[in-house]
């Protein structure tokens, strides 16, 4: 707490920070060839947010098409390509790698008191696999026209279209390997490199979340890789695996696709859940309520999450028994998420809450994630899902979960850890007001989609019936407000990380290990290996009961 009061000019510059080049390479090469987990994390972050920006621009254009019915802005072919690219870029290049490769890379070793991940070179290799995969996907844009299958590449359409699907799918395949290798790296790191004294139940909850996520990455991603390979084989060699006329089964593709892509949702949401616990524990100045329940619910979500993929296919024509079992399991997976939410609220009880920007992001998350999660109950129920699947309702639901839940916490985490990463602070007042702007924009953008979906507006339509015009317009205005907020946020964060006032090791009064080293940390992370005595959220000054 002491250094909060210290004026910025009195804070000494950190000697040998990871931002200085000390190795044999100079300039850009010192970054591109670095195996330092912190530098790799920053490089990922630059790439991810570049793709995010592209995805946002595509999203804005998708909305803009709805300014009037009839698809007057873009012809159907272009609109279909836009939503495919928006999905592929956002899902495979932004939210799936997401928090683990960026903040996970940077903070996992710091939080467990390690010098680096278990396999630093493999880590750099994963980064380049990601870059190569992304480059391959982007190449698909320039060969045979833009892919227009939607991000799910459903067969048989994806086998028939003449656009660059094969290349795009192969790119996703490569990115998948990056994901698997990162998962293996993190698992080994967590198992082997924890500081002395850090038993499993003394690990920060972000580490628990990364642990659960890594298992999902390792076990689920190969299924995607195999599925995508089968598409490539079908397209290139004409093998009829998914072709009903040749004895194959198109629904088999959907099974294989969702066996990966549903657990992938938990790859997207588990890490943010971990960060929510971190931020709440820091800004309430007390220990988290139900630590073990939160840690175990991450594992429960990861486990049950494997068994619910069929809820994407309730109208695909599975058997009634399959529909029933998948619906049942889907409701079960809601329970651990609910438990987490209740524990987070209970963690605020009798805290000493300092609502700094990261905490405000958590409050926004609680609203948006709750709406997203509860709307998921509507979709888990068979009767309502049959009506609402493939409508705007689903679009609203998963944007509330992934964007409102996951990505808002990604932003919150940037506000939380940026002072640690760069040793400087952004403008907190701008950050807080800007969050309000983004929150309003977000709800204007996505909430009308729940209503339109219920009224029967199908997704992936370049046109709509006139009665949807008002709702579409509210949603479009929301998208502009949200984007304005995003721009202000990024400018504030980038400006803060370069020019902001300097901060000391622990500007928020956090209790986990990353706050016990310099801001920015040195190449070695810690001057000497830390020894862990207390549970992760032990606030010395707090009363105990």
């Amino acid at each position, binding site marked *: 707490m002491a250094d909060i009061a210290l004026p910025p000019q009195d804070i000494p510059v950190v000697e040998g920070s990871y931002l200085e080049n000390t190795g044999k390479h100079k300039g850009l090469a010192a970054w591109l060839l670095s195996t330092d987990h912190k530098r790799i994390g920053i490089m990922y972050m630059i790439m991810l947010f570049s793709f995010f920006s592209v995805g946002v621009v595509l999203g804005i254009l998708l909305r803009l098409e709805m300014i009037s019915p009839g698809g007057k802005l873009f012809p159907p072919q272009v609109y279909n390509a836009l939503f495919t690219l928006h999905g592929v870029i956002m899902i495979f290049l932004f939210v799936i790698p997401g928090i683990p490769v960026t903040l996970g890379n940077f903070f996992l070793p710091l939080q467990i008191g390690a010098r680096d991940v278990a396999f630093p070179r493999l880590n750099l290799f994963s980064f380049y696999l990601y870059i190569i995969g992304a480059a391959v996907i982007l190449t698909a844009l320039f060969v045979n026209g833009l892919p227009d299958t939607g991000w799910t590449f459903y067969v048989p359409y994806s086998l028939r279209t003449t656009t660059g699907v094969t290349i795009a799918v192969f790119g996703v395949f490569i990115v998948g390997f990056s994901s698997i290798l990162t998962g293996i790296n993190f698992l080994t790191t967590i198992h082997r490199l924890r500081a002395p004294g850090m038993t499993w139940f003394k690990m920060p909850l972000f580490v628990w979340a990364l642990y659960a996520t890594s298992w999902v990455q390792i076990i689920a991603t190969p299924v995607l890789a195999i599925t995508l390979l089968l598409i490539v084989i079908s397209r290139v060699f004409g093998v009829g695996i998914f072709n*009903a006329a040749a004895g194959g089964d198109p629904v088999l593709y959907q099974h294989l696709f969702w066996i990966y892509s549903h657990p992938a949702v938990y790859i997207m949401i588990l890490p943010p859940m971990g960060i929510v616990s971190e931020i709440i524990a820091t800004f309430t100045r*007390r*220990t988290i309520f*139900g630590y073990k329940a939160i840690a175990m619910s991450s594992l429960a979500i990861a486990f049950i999450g494997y068994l619910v993929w069929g809820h994407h296919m309730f109208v695909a024509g599975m058997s009634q028994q399959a529909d029933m079992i998948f619906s049942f399991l889907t409701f079960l997976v809601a329970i651990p998420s609910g438990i987490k939410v209740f524990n987070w609220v209970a963690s605020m009880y009798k805290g000493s809450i300092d609502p700094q920007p990261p905490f405000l992001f958590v409050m926004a998350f609680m609203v948006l994630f709750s709406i997203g999660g509860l709307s998921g109950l509507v979709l888990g129920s068979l009767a309502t899902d049959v009506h609402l699947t493939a409508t705007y309702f689903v679009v609203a639901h998963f944007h509330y979960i992934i964007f409102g839940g996951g990505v808002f916490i990604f932003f919150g985490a940037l506000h939380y850890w940026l002072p640690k990463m760069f040793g400087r602070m952004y403008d907190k007042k701008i950050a807080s007001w800007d969050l309000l702007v983004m929150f309003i924009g977000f709800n204007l953008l996505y909430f009308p989609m729940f209503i339109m979906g219920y009224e029967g507006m199908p997704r992936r339509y370049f046109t709509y019936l006139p009665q949807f015009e008002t709702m579409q317009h509210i949603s479009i205005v929301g998208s502009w407000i949200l984007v304005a907020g995003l721009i202000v946020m990024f400018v504030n964060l980038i400006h803060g990380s370069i020019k902001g006032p300097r901060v000391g090791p622990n500007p928020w009064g956090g209790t986990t290990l990353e706050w016990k080293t310099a801001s920015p940390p040195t190449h070695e992370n810690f001057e000497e290996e830390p020894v862990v005595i207390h549970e992760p959220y032990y606030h010395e000054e707090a009363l105990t009961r």
Partner: protein
Amino acid sequence: MRLLPYALNHAQAVDDVMRFIVISSIILFLIVIVTMVVFVFKYNHKRNPRATSIPGNVPLEIFWTVVPTVLVLAMFYVGWEAYLQIRTVPKNAMPVKVFARQWSFSFEYMNGKRTDTLYVPKGRPIDCLIKSLDVIHSFYLPAFREKQDALPDRVRHMVVIPEHLGIFDVVCTQYCGLDHALMKTKMIVLPDTTFDRWINSSSTAEPKVALGDSTIYF
């Protein structure tokens, strides 16, 4: 929750399930969010400079695990029950073949008559035999809260019971390429005598619909 007009009992059942889930959800949402906001104000660091660390409370944690579990299982059950209505084909159902192709629907009746608009008699259960002639499509009747994917070389069933006269939208909801958004037609519910006269006539003309005596949705 009556944003769409009712077209049959099934739609009402779906809306009832929807209402149950949405109202329970709003209550849960308010409990969580209001509690959070109250805590943030009440335990602001200015008012409460010293926090109290409470690591957990087993009875409380059991309570908020069990109650939501019971609640979601109830949601599961009502959803499952209403869903069975459209999957259980009644004995007296009239079969109609539904063909989907890029980018239109067509329909074939028992006696081989074909149309591009779906004509059905009021009050008689219809067993839609849904099939695609190319890629995957979805046969969606918003006013009936029903949809079913159309798969190539596979037949899937969906039961529709039209209980009101009227003209209803039929749209495709499984992305199927260029003009997916334009793949739509109408379902017209006729008085059963009108329907019978038309289906049994040798004329290939489609039935004349007197719009005056029917409700028009959309």
